[in-house]
């Protein structure tokens, strides 16, 4: 895997200078590589990983399993494109297995999400059925462990006793 992408994936706030030192390249080379990744659409953006539960208590999210009937020629793309336009929708995946689309949705409350599913999702033409799973607690999200205090370093010096 590309080491520059891996580093940015872990921490997008590392400076060009730091990245250059770590990867043994010049700052110009790093800037060019990042620009090329952005241009090619490989780097799609930079955002903070926020534990919203600590900030906003009025936030709910759910994973919704959708069974849909694919359209001739366009398969699942058409319905997926439609669903991803909703502001409430965080992610849309086409899945193998017992259902077709997995949709992650957020809202102010569970009630809010339920209304969205009832009024907007299940009424879409090709949607056959929905199953809504509310997320109760996030333990780990986007590779980051949430809801824990910084782990204490329990290593100790063996030089002094």
């Amino acid at each position, binding site marked *: 895997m590309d080491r520059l992408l891996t580093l940015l994936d872990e*921490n997008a706030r590392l400076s060009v200078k730091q990245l250059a*030192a770590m990867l*043994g390249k010049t700052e110009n080379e790093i800037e060019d590589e990042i620009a090329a990744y952005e241009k090619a659409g490989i780097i799609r953006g930079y955002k903070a990983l926020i534990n919203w539960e600590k900030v906003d208590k009025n936030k709910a999210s759910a994973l919704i399993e959708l069974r849909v009937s694919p359209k001739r020629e366009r398969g699942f793309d058409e319905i997926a494109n439609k669903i991803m336009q909703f502001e409430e929708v965080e992610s849309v995946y086409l899945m193998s297995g017992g259902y077709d689309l997995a949709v992650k949705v957020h809202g102010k409350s569970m009630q809010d999400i339920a209304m969205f599913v009832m009024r907007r999702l299940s009424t879409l033409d090709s949607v056959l059925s929905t199953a809504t799973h509310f997320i109760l607690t996030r333990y780990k999200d986007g590779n980051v462990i949430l809801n824990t205090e910084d782990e204490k370093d329990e*290593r*100790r*010096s063996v*030089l*002094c*006793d």
Partner: protein
Amino acid sequence: MIDYERMLNSEVKNMKPSGIRRFFDIASEMDHVISLSIGEPDFTTPWHVREEGIRSLEDGKTWYSPNRGFLELREEICRFLKRHCHLDYEPKTDIVVTVGGSEAIDLTIRSLIEPGEEVLIPEPSFVCYKPLTIASRGVPVVLETKQEDQFRLTAEELKSKITPKTKLLILPYPNNPTGAVMRRENLEAVAEVVEEHNLFVLSDEIYGELTYGDYRHVSFAEIGGMKERTVLVNGFSKAFAMTGWRLGYAAGPKEIIRQMTKLHQFGIMSAPTTAQYAAIEALKNGDGDIISMRDQYDLRRRLIVDGFNEMGLSCFEPEGAFYVFPCIKSTGLSSEEFCEKLLYSEKVAVVPGNAFGDCGEGYIRVSYSYSIRHITEALSRIEHFLRTMPGDRNA
């Protein structure tokens, strides 16, 4: 009342406790200290290795192992040494599994050294060689290594300290605390002197797998004619992030290993059984773990070397272990003063270089066995410390 002073063994009594103890005592009582002082991996042991340890406990494998260690483990150690260092050892006779590399060092010195015989110890280096030599009634003789030689041991320095009483040379490379490595040509130059003066060598290669850049670790035993004069010490702590399991080994001529095994048998019996089962898994399927941890250390190494050079503390580029050893002479402070002031004003803990021998004065040991976030924070505090130090050192 018992007069303990008179009861105690005088060699042990006179062993100096590490001089930096006071310094660590202060650090441990302060809040929000950010440390770059620890000398062990920040990774936990790879899961598949831990799992084998757990499985052995579930299966009730809680008995002693053979004194030398399980044969299967010794076979895997031999395969590892063959794979990584092109060395051929015989599992039945040439290996003893020990409680950490440290026990292997102790056994080697005790099996070889007669009272009054001299042991050559390059410094700066880890702190155990001198006291263990003294405990065997041997005489430690310091070989100074210098930044201008990339902290490598030179044949000239070695020759200058050899006397008729010299028996053993210790080769602690890759080196803690400097991060120096000995390249093949450096080892060859040393080997010539070793051969000429009929010395034995204890090659402490515990950091061997943590060698960076294009250069790969060369064991001293690989150098022509040296295998029969070398006890090679390695272990699982650094390469596989297994410090707490306490497992190491010595590989060497069977005549020496046999004597070491006797001491091990009477003093220790056998190394921990659970750790040995985990270690078999580490050697069988852990080469990938070594590579991915080494890659992580390498990124941090480059980051921290660049950071120190950038803030004007000249930093020798280490090629092994996970320490940098920047020179702080430009600040006009001694190593201990520097570390103490840094601790009080910025709450960053690093280790004074003189803890590793007098010639480490003027340097500090900084470990990069920490996350990148942790390292960047510590570097910016050290930078702030230098910038706000009273008296303009750049004037």
